């Protein structure tokens, strides 16, 4: 196998990897804050809001991501009357599905993180005169971040691999170009290249979260 061949195969794959990375970043930066918002809604004192948020989490976690993707990309336009306004760019529709799905998972992770914080922390903050907002930002969040970092790292790595589901809704990404090359050239090498690129991405993430865990550790 010549070096030239590797280059010709890799070039489209790396372009596909850009879509993969774009989707990853888009989903991470939106679903984490959205997930935190959902956590707060679940904890809302208004029962109806809490139930709605819980239902949302249940729907998103209780059905396959693939189904949600197909629904957003191919299903939305089929809805009577409003469907014609819901024809989105396929990448946008898919990203939306990813964001809503991952937000639900992050919401559950954050909820667990909040539950793990001792009631005494809130009480100490209160008797020291901190208001709700100051308590959340200065006392609760820093502790929550530390407990949720490992599961968030886990979710992020899963997301890298889940981006390959774009294949199913025909948005060309890394795996799509690998598969094309395999079919065309009758060689299995492009799959190995794809694996290596995924591994590199997860390696970067692993190192990043290691660093963050160190940064947020105390003792």
């Amino acid at each position: 196998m010549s070096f030239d061949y590797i280059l010709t195969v890799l070039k489209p794959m790396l372009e596909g990897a850009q879509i993969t990375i774009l989707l990853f970043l888009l989903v991470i930066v939106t679903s984490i804050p959205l997930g935190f918002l959902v956590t707060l809604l679940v904890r809302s004192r208004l029962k109806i809001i809490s139930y709605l948020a819980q239902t949302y989490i249940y729907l998103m976690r209780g059905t396959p991501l693939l189904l949600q993707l197909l629904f957003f990309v191919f299903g939305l336009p089929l809805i009577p009357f409003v469907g014609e306004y819901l024809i989105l760019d396929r990448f946008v529709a898919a990203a939306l599905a990813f964001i809503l799905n991952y937000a639900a998972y992050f919401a559950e992770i954050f909820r667990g993180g909040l539950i793990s914080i001792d009631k005494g922390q809130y009480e100490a903050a209160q008797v020291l005169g901190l208001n709700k907002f100051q308590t959340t930002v200065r006392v609760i969040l820093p502790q929550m971040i530390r407990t949720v970092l490992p599961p968030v790292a886990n979710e992020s790595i899963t997301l890298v691999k889940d981006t390959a589901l774009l294949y199913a809704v025909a948005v060309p990404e890394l795996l799509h170009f690998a598969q094309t090359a395999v079919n065309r050239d009758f060689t299995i090498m492009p799959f190995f290249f794809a694996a290596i690129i995924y591994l590199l991405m997860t390696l970067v993430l692993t190192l990043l979260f290691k660093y963050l865990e160190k940064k947020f550790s105390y003792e």
Partner: protein
Amino acid sequence: MIEIENLQKSFGSLQVLKNISFSVSKNEVVAVIGPSGSGKSTMLRSLIYLEQVDGGTIKIDGDYLVKEGTYSNNQTIKRVTSKMGMVFQHFNLFPHLTVKQNLELAPRVTKKIPKDEISKHTERLLEKVGLLDKMDVYPGNLSGGQKQRVAIARALMLQPDILLFDEPTSALDPELTGEVLKVIQELAEESMTMIVVTHEMEFAKRVADRIIFMDEGKIVETGDPISVLENPQKERTKRFLSGIEK
């Protein structure tokens, strides 16, 4: 300084405080004793608004926290509770902050002390509790006794007029209680007004001006330490004290 009348509080159907009334004058140290579940913590926590009572009056330094079951507005509540500091059984230090940061968080965000004076206060108070060298250590690396001394220093940062202690030594190994009790005793000598819920009878006898003995949500007996602890009038008090001394 503290006036409490007819405090009532239930958790569901369980009546925890049944018409508690007492007052504490300025510079007085009151020790609250009593069996487990008698409502000591609930009473103390009600004073600083960690629990809301169902009825009764709490008046601190002329301001009502709650008057005949009706709470004051939020601003008044904030003003009243800011006159008090509280030290918890389990310290409740902020684990993600160093000792210095634990002390300085509240004064910084509530702006109760001018910024340039904060670290002076920190040093003075850490010196007072003998932990100046632990300034940059995280609570996780301190012994229980050290943690509680940090918690006391943290409560003192906001210069409260009254300090409330809920079993400050109950979570400590016996050999570590002394260092914490010593700090509390020093505060008493400096005329700090304090209410201390405790099981340390020797300490109560030595430091308190007055003892309150509670049982089943009521004050059974109150008086100076010698009379309550050495010569109790009520049967219930005698039984409790003889049980403890074993």
